[in-house]
């Protein structure tokens, strides 16, 4: 599902990723780990097309993400859900509107959007909170809205950059459990984190980065 061949990423003269070659299969769950500045976020940005590699090649769901232009980018992203540490919800839109946005941009009909949004809010345990604004929810609930938005269009890949970074223990575990549930439905999930406790509790394959190099996979 995800393949990297000798990927380099340089920012100016700083090497964020050095010669990374790795493969993640369809339906797999993997952590991206390593100390701060190791290149975890950079890897995810390359995967969802926010950055291009300086050299090397990467494929996501069969799409070559190393040479995308702005016109092709949306079509890569429709197959990838992304979750961030800071949720990135739209503050003046309801939960339902926030999640529905991912379907709206596909041109889905309103009735269809409503039906699917309600279904996915059920999956993440937010039934009945459709009309709330993000700031009326707890951090854990907000992150679950973000996960709902990322998976509402059934992407093949879910990328999460420190999804539990802003959450305390119980809420972090809730969110992790939802990510695992998503994975069980067949979605390939990649979670960047340096929370050793979580990785111990939910053991999975780990891709460890140090100074931009993949040191263990």
């Amino acid at each position, binding site marked *: 599902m995800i393949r990297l061949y000798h990927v380099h990423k340089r920012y100016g003269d700083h090497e964020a990723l050095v010669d990374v070659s790795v493969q993640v299969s369809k339906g797999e769950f993997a952590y991206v780990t390593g100390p701060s500045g190791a290149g975890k976020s950079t890897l995810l940005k390359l995967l969802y097309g926010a950055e291009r590699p300086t050299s090397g090649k990467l494929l996501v769901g069969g799409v070559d993400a190393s040479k995308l232009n702005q*016109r092709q980018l*949306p079509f890569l*992203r429709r197959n990838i859900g992304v979750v961030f540490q800071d949720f*990135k919800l739209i503050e003046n839109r309801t939960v339902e509107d926030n999640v529905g*946005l*991912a379907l709206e*941009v596909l041109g889905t009909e309103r009735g269809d959007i409503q039906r699917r949004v309600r279904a996915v809010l059920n999956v993440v345990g937010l039934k009945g909170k459709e009309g709330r604004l993000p700031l009326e929810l707890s951090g854990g609930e907000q992150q679950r809205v973000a996960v709902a938005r990322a998976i509402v269009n059934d992407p093949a890949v879910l990328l999460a950059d420190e999804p539990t970074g802003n959450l305390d223990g119980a809420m972090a575990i809730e969110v992790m459990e939802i990510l695992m549930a998503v994975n069980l439905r067949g979605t390939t999930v990649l979670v960047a984190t340096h929370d050793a406790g979580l990785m111990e509790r939910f053991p999975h394959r780990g891709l460890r980065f140090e100074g931009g190099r993949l040191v263990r996979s």
Partner: protein
Amino acid sequence: MMAHVLRRALRSLWENLSLNLVATAVISAATLLAGVYLAVMVNLTGVVDSWDRDVHISAYFFSDVPVDRRFAVKDELGARPEVAEVHYVSEQEAAAWLVDKVQDVEPVLAELGPEVLPSSLEITMADEANGPAQIAAFIDTIDYAEFEVIDYGQEWVQRFNTFLALLQVMGVVLGSLIFTAAVFLVGNTMHLVVYARKQELETMKLVGATWTFISLPFLLEGALQGLVGSGVALLGVYGLHRLLVFQLQDALQLAIGGEALSFLSWPACTGLLSAGVFLGVVGCLVSVHRFWRAAP
């Protein structure tokens, strides 16, 4: 899809009402300037045309020239090949003409006596002899002692035409400057609108919105700003026009010869409206595009 675009455009208009009003006002000001300029040009050109059409030479008789001598001169001139037509205007006809053109002048004329205006010959040149040089040459050949003054408008028209040409050049130069400034101002105002919606637009890009999907509502927003802005400006130009017609009625009748001030033609109106829409659309698209390229 269209319903969706419309909904988002209206929401954006509503949620950033004051910024949208600023953009609309900028467009309005720019098109108002253009409209006033066009209206002035249309009317000045109209004046020149009406003069040009009846370039004629007025040769005024001394008041002691006997009437039969006046007609003899008229016939001599009428026989010249350069001349299309000669018309004799008596003192009474001249006075009647003035009374007809200018309100309230009658008592003044009565006071001065009916023969205060001189009699004259109105000479209309044949079309092929109508050039400024030919007219000047012709005038040199008609130095009858009976004429007190020989008057013709051509020189004036010439100067006025030069002035108009200058005005046109200035209009194009200033117009382009104003247009550029307006695009810039609208662009920057819309940049604030885009910035206010940054979160939403970034999220939309992140979940796979295309450029068309993101930009269409802004395009519509810009078009609406342009339409409203230039519509208001047109109304403003029309208001000014009515006001001037009302205020200057009498003076205008004398200068232009009875024709009222003309308003902008339909093509000019639609042109102004389109220019406003173009301004709004370009301003909006420029700022959304700037955002679109920079967003992750």
